[in-house]
């Protein structure tokens, strides 16, 4: 008798716990899920608004990252004097007028494609403006979110619309002791790729050679790649010599920097928990797109990184 009751109890417990597990997974699921749906309906509260805002941003970015070459042409022909960031100016309208003014550069098919996409962007931008009007804190909040969990990144990836996230400023040194200031570093390069790694991380070390090749490639385009070895923060001597040792063995010659761990950039680094993580930063010190999590030795990760770099370079020229 007792045995039976016990059995039922343990079964009930099992059931309960399984449900809990499923529910908690489902909770996570919806968290990730509401990024992909719920596009056009009105947000009910600020939280939904943030989700929608991010989602729209992601959609816009998807559109822009699809036909990179064509968009690059558009950016190139954009009127250099024309300020992108005028109040009330819709980015979609701006694109449409730019496309119109450069129509001799495109075939009819290309024109149709570009105009269609630009119209989509205009619609998205309109929705974004609506959300921003209703929930003014949203744009701010979506960047704040991104700040607190950098690798977590429900990060928005807007192009030149003013709500970009700044890469945290730092004043540090490279592993040879030369001072490095983030402002000078970023403003001196059309694009800066920042790679976070640590010495005992196998995939991080595995991609050093690839990163060195990328650095050389970037140098030709007016960009640069720097590494941040998290063990070397605050200038730990032993860690620096170990890091240098690994870099030499892997033939990586690009600059590796460290900074104080209690500074803005130090706290940013402490929040990164997945390694390697690679950020793309533009000339204004803004983070372009979402960080690449995982080694770029993986083909699709390398492609994503290249897209972000191209995007930053194109924006710099436009």
């Amino acid at each position, binding site marked *: 008798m007792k045995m039976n009751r016990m059995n039922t109890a343990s079964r009930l*417990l099992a059931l309960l716990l399984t449900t809990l597990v499923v529910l908690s997974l489902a909770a996570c699921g919806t968290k*990730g899920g509401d990024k992909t749906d719920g596009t056009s309906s009105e947000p009910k509260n600020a939280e939904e608004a943030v989700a929608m805002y991010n989602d729209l941003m992601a959609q816009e970015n998807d559109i822009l990252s699809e036909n990179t070459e064509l968009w690059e042409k558009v950016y190139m022909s954009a009127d250099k004097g024309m300020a992108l960031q005028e109040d009330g100016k819709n980015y979609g309208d701006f694109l449409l007028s730019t496309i119109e003014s450069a129509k001799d550069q495109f075939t009819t098919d290309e024109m149709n494609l570009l105009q269609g996409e630009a119209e989509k962007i205009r619609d998205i931008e309109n929705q974004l403006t609506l959300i921003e009007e209703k929930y003014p804190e949203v744009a701010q909040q979506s960047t704040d979110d991104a700040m607190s*969990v950098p690798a977590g990144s429900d990060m928005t990836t807007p192009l030149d619309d003013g709500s970009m996230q700044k890469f945290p400023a730092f004043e540090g040194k490279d592993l040879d002791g030369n001072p490095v200031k983030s402002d000078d570093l970023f403003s001196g390069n059309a694009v800066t790729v920042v790679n976070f790694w640590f010495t005992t991380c196998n995939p991080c070390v595995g991609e050093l050679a690839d990163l060195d090749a990328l650095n050389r490639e970037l140098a030709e385009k007016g960009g640069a790649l720097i590494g941040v070895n998290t063990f070397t923060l605050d200038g730990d001597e032993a860690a620096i010599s170990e890091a240098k040792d690994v870099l030499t063995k892997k033939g990586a010659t690009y600059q590796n920097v460290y900074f104080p761990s209690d500074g803005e950039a130090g706290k940013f680094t402490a*929040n990164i928990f997945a390694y390697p993580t690679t950020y793309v930063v533009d000339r204004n010190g803004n983070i372009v797109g979402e960080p690449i999590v995982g080694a770029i030795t993986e083909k699709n990760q390398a492609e994503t990184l290249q897209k972000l770099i191209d995007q930053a370079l194109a924006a710099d020229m436009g």
Partner: protein
Amino acid sequence: MDKKFSGVSQTMSRFRGWIQAGATLLTNLHLPNFLKGGLYQGAGKTVCVPGLNCYSCPAASGACPIGAFQAVVGSSKFSFSYYITGILILLGVLLGRFICGFLCPFGWFQELLHKIPTKKFSTKKLKPLTYLKYAVLLVMVFLLPAFLVNDVGMGNPFFCKYLCPQGVLEGAIPLSLANSGIRAALGKLFTWKFSILLSVIALSVLFYRPFCKWLCPLGAFYALFNRVSLFQMKVDKNKCVSCGKCAKACKMDVDVTKTPNHTECIRCGMCIRACPTKAVCFRYGFGDGKDKTNVAEMPQKNKDNKEI
């Protein structure tokens, strides 16, 4: 049936599910991290937990012993981990495979799956597979990470990377759900490991604890210490009526009357509850304690009685 159950052994065995739940919770204390999609990064992770519990689980409160061993062995500085081996020897001698039966989160996970009502299959005929886990321990956890190294002397954690289903269940799945960056990083390796997890789940429904029996390197290590563990099974030959109910009840395919401290015994205590004469119980202490416990437990009986 005798209604008056007595003894700690009975109680422990009966509340095993709750103890397992409690141990799983203690091993994964930082639950809010599931929603944040981050890891606990405190000093608690210097120490490893007794069971198989991925330290890339957002909630994990300590390091996984197997993961930590590979991390040390695979680093360029060391090719053996005295620290982890020391901890594992202590745990092995103090508790042995009691850890598998009572404290391991992945063991509990498999048991919960086994409660799903379907036709169940015996693993008795698959006994040779139980030796596989020693090969996993030796090759994937020690030899390959320690000696198959790259040009800077670093090895891959082969078990974590290619085999461990717990890493996918606790690490990859929750993290990728909460974190879009990690979702973007999911690749072929994840597909492979996810298939392993699915197979283990399917097998767990049909068989009792298939991963513990055949693959778990941690279980393999503790198994080696079962014979010398302070935590033991004790069969009172005077009470035993050789009915064979204990062997039938054992889902790890052990006959406790013949080999009370068999490598496969996870001290779950199913035999204790199955025994009609209450001849089987847990014992904790140095040595075999044959004479002392016999006298202490039933001083009224003569220990020279016939053994039937």
